[in-house]
C-alpha cells in the first residue's frame, strides 16, 4: 500500500520533473532564440554600414584616377595671333584700360585652341587617317581653355612647344576603365570606332595614362566638359556656409545655453523657450528651407543661391543642437564649482564666465563640431533657396552664387552621362564622408582626451 503511494508519488514527482525539464528546455531554447535575434539585429545594422561604405568606396575610388593625355603642344603664333597684351598708358582711365584688356582677352578666347590640340595629337599618334572631329573628341572639351590660361599667364610661351597634361574626354575614361560594355555595337557606343581604336593604342603607348584626378579638387563644375567637372566651387561654398554657422551659431547658441541654464528664472517663458528649442531640434530640415525661401529671399531680398542665405538657414538648424548639448555640458559640471565661486564672493556673472565656462569649453567644442558636421551634410533646405543652380565659378564672397558639396552630389547623380558620373558622384561622396568622419573623429578625440570626467 505504502509502496504504491510512494510509487505514485515518485512517478508524479518524476512526471513533474520531466514536465519542468521539458518546459525548461523550451524556455531555454526561447532564450537562445531571443538572444540570437538580438545578435542578428546588431550584425544586420553593422552589415548595413559595411555594405554602404564598401559599395561607395568600390564605385568611387577608381574615379580618383582619370584618363589623362600627355601631349607636346606647339603654341603656333599663326594660330595664336593676338599680339602682346595691352599696357596701361599714363593718360588712360582704368575703365578704358579694362576695355582694352577685355578686347585682348576676347581675342584669346576666339583662338582656335583645338587646332593646337589636334596638332599635338597628330604628332603623338603618327600616321593616322582619323578625322579631326574624332581626334579632338578624345580630349575633354574644357581642356582647350587650359591652353588659353597658359597664354594668359605667360604670353611669352607663344611660339614654343610645351608638354601639357590634358584630361581625356569622359567617354574615353569610361571606355578605358571598362565602365561601358565594350561588346556593344558602335552605334550604341559613345565613342566612334576610330576613337575606340585610338584610345586603346594611346593607352598602350602610355600617352593616355591614369593620373590622379586633380581636376576633381581644383576645378569647378562643368556641363560641357564632364571630365573636368570638379568640386572646388561646391567646396568653397560649403566652407563659407560652415564659417557662417560657426560665427553665428556658436556664440548665440552658447549664450542662450548659458542664459537658460545659469540665469533664467524658472517661469512660464523659460519653459516655453525650452520646449521650443527641443521642438526646433526635431523640425524637419526642409521646413527650415521653406523659412529661408520665404523670409530671407522673399522678404529680405537676399540673393538666391548665395552661401550667405544657406549659412543663415543652416545656422538656425544648428542652433538647437548646440544649445541642447551645451546645456547638458553645463549641467554635468558639479555644483560645487559654482558654490565655491559664489562662496568667495563672486557674482553670478563672474561665477559663470570665470569658472563654469572655461571648464565647459571642451564640451562646447565637441557640440560645435558635431553641429557643423551635421550642417555640412544637409541638402534639402539648400535646394529650396536655389543652391542647386549650376554655377561654374568659385564664389569669391558669400554673396556670390554657389552650390554646396551635398548639393553638388545631388546634381551629379542626376547627370545624363551616367557611366561617367556614377563614379564621379561616388568620389564626391567619399570626399564628403571623409570630411564628416574627420570632423566627428576630432569630436570623439576631444571628448575622450580633453573633457574632464567629474
Amino acid at each position, binding site marked *: 500500500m505504502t509502496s504504491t503511494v510512494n510509487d505514485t508519488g515518485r512517478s508524479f514527482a518524476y512526471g513533474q520533473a520531466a514536465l519542468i525539464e521539458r518546459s525548461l528546455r523550451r524556455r*531555454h531554447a*526561447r*532564450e537562445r532564440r531571443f*538572444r540570437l*535575434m*538580438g545578435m*542578428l*539585429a*546588431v550584425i544586420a*545594422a*553593422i552589415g548595413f*554600414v559595411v555594405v*554602404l561604405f564598401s*559599395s*561607395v568606396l568600390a564605385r568611387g575610388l577608381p574615379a580618383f584616377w582619370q584618363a589623362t593625355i600627355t601631349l607636346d603642344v606647339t603654341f603656333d603664333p599663326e594660330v595664336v595671333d593676338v599680339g602682346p597684351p595691352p599696357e596701361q598708358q599714363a593718360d588712360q*582711365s*582704368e*575703365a578704358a584700360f579694362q*576695355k582694352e584688356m577685355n578686347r585682348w582677352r576676347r581675342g584669346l578666347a576666339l583662338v582656335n585652341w583645338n587646332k593646337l590640340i589636334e596638332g599635338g595629337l597628330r604628332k603623338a599618334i603618327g600616321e593616322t587617317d582619323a578625322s579631326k572631329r574624332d581626334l579632338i573628341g578624345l580630349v575633354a572639351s574644357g581642356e582647350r581653355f587650359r591652353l588659353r590660361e597658359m597664354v594668359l599667364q605667360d604670353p611669352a610661351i607663344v611660339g614654343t612647344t610645351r608638354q601639357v597634361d590634358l584630361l581625356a574626354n569622359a567617354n574615353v575614361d569610361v571606355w578605358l576603365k571598362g565602365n561601358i560594355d565594350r561588346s556593344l555595337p558602335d552605334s550604341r557606343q559613345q565613342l566612334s570606332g576610330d576613337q575606340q581604336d585610338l584610345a586603346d593604342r594611346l593607352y598602350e603607348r602610355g600617352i593616355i595614362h591614369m593620373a590622379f584626378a586633380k581636376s576633381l579638387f581644383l576645378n569647378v563644375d562643368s556641363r560641357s566638359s564632364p571630365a573636368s567637372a570638379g568640386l572646388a566651387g561646391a567646396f568653397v561654398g560649403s566652407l563659407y556656409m560652415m564659417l557662417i554657422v560657426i560665427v553665428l551659431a556658436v*556664440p*548665440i*547658441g552658447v*549664450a*542662450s*545655453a548659458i*542664459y*537658460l541654464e545659469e*540665469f533664467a528664472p524658472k517661469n512660464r517663458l523659460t519653459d516655453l*523657450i525650452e520646449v521650443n528649442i*527641443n*521642438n526646433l531640434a*526635431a*523640425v*524637419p530640415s*526642409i*521646413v527650415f528651407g*521653406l*523659412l529661408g525661401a*520665404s523670409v530671407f529671399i*522673399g522678404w529680405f531680398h537676399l540673393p538666391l543661391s548665395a552661401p550667405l542665405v544657406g549659412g543663415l538657414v543652416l545656422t*538656425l538648424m544648428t542652433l*538647437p543642437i548646440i*544649445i541642447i548639448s551645451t546645456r547638458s555640458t553645463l549641467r554635468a559640471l558639479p555644483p560645487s564649482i559654482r558654490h565655491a565661486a559664489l562662496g568667495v564672493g563672486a*557674482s553670478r*556673472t563672474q561665477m559663470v564666465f570665470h569658472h563654469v565656462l572655461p571648464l565647459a569649453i571642451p564640451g562646447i567644442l565637441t557640440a560645435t563640431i558635431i553641429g557643423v558636421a*551635421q550642417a*555640412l*551634410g544637409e*541638402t*534639402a533646405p539648400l*535646394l529650396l533657396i*536655389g543652391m542647386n543652380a549650376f554655377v561654374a565659378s568659385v564664389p569669391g564672397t558669400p554673396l556670390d552664387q554657389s552650390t554646396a558639396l*551635398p548639393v553638388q552630389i545631388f546634381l551629379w*547623380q542626376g547627370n545624363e552621362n551616367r557611366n561617367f558620373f556614377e563614379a564621379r558622384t*561616388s568620389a564626391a*561622396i567619399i570626399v564628403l*564622408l571623409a570630411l564628416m*568622419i574627420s570632423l*566627428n573623429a576630432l569630436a*570623439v578625440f576631444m571628448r575622450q582626451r580633453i573633457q574632464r570626467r567629474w
Partner: protein
Amino acid sequence: MHSLTVIIVLLLLMALAYRVGLTRSRHLASGARQRLHSRPVYHGTLLAIWCAIPALIVLVLWAVFGDELSRFYILAQLPADVAKQPADQLDLVVERIRQIASGFGVADTEAPYESEIAAGLRTFGTVAWLSVVALAAVAGLVATRLAWSRISPELRARNEVERVVGALLAFCSGVAILTTIGIVASLLGEAIRFFTFVSPIDFFFGTVWNPRFSTVGAGGQGDFGLLPLLWGTVLVSLIAMLVAGPIGLMAAIYMAEYAPRRVRMTAKPIVEILAGIPTIVYGFFALTIVGPFLADIGASIGLDIRATSAFTAGVVMGIMIIPFISSLSDDIITQVPRAMRDGSLGLGSTHSETIKRVVLPAALPGLVGAFLLAISRAVGETMIVVLAAGNRPVLNANPFEAVSTVTVTIVNQLTGDADFASPQSLVAFALGLTLFAMTLALNVVALYIVRKYREQYE
C-alpha cells in the same frame, strides 16, 4: 578700407574710454581712501560700453541712409534736362557718376556735367564721411564724459555691466523663439495666400495631385489634392518603421542586456555611424544599389518591384533610422531600475522572459516616445524619397510602385522657379505647414512621454 578705419577708430575710442574709467576709478579709490563698490575693470568696461552705443547708432544710421543721401546729392545737382529722364535712365546716370567719382572712370568720354558732379560728389563723399566719423566719435566721447562724471566709489558699475551681459544672453535665447515665430509666420502667411487660389477643402481632401505648370496660363488651375502625397508619406514611413523598429529595438535590447562590455563599446559607435551619414548619400545608395538589388530579387521570385518605389525608399530610410531607435531605446532600457530585473530573475524567469515581461513593459512609454520621434523623422526626411521613391503622386496601395511624398513635392514645386505668386509654388508652403503640424504633434507627444517617463525613475 573705410569700414576697417571705422572699426579701428571705434576700438581706439573704446580703449580710451576703458582707460579713462580705469584711471579715474583708481584715482578715486586712492584719493578718497574709500573702498570702491566695483573693481576699476568694471568702471572701464562700463565707460567703453557707453562710448560704443551712441557711436554705433550713428554708424548704423549712416550705413542705412548713406547711399540714399549720396544719390540724393547727385540727383539735386543734375541739369534739368537730364533729371527729367525716367527712373531707370537716372539710375544709369547715377551709376556712371559714381564710377567717375571712384576713380575707376567710364569707357567712353565723360559729359562735362558728369565730371563736375563727380568732382562735387568726391568732396561731398569725403566731407560726409569725415563728418559721420567725427559725429560718431563726438557722440561716443560725450556719452563717455557723461558716464565718467557718474564714477564714484558708490557707483555699482559691476552690476550695470552684468545687466548688459545678461540682456545680451537673454536676447540670444530669444533667437530660438524668433525662429519658431518665423517658421510659423512664413508658412502660415504663404499658405494663406495659397488658399486664396485653392480652397482648403480641395487641398486637404482632394484625391488628385496634378498641379500643372504656372506657365500654362490662368485657365490651367490644376488639382492640388493632398491625400496622394500624404498616403505616400505614410506608406514610406510605415515601411521604414517596419525595417527600423524590430532591428533597432532588438539591437538596443542586445546591447543593453546581453552584450559584453567590449562588444558594446565597439558595436555601438559603428551602428551610430549610420546616423551621421548625410541623407543625400542614403539617397544615392538607394538609387544605385538598393533599388536595382530589390528589383532583381523581386524578378527572381516573380514579384514586380520597381527600382524606385515606396519599398526601396522605405527600406533605406529604415536603415537610416535604426541608430536613432537603437540609441534612444538603449538609453531607456538601461534606465529601468536594476531591482526590477533582479526581482524577476530571482523568481526564476529566464533573461529573455525578464526582458519581455518586466523590462519592456516598464520601458514601454519611453519606447513609444522614441518610436514617435523616429516616425517624425521619417515623415520629414527628404533626400532619400526625392531620389528613390519615384515621384508618382497617385493613390496606390501597392508598396512596390513609385509614390510621391509631401517632402518630395515641396522640393519639386519650389525648385526651378522662385516665383512666389503662383499657386504652383505657394502650395509648397501649404505642404510645409502640413508637414510642420504633423511633426510638431508627433514631437510634442513624444517629448512629453519621454520626459514624464524619465522623471518616474529618477
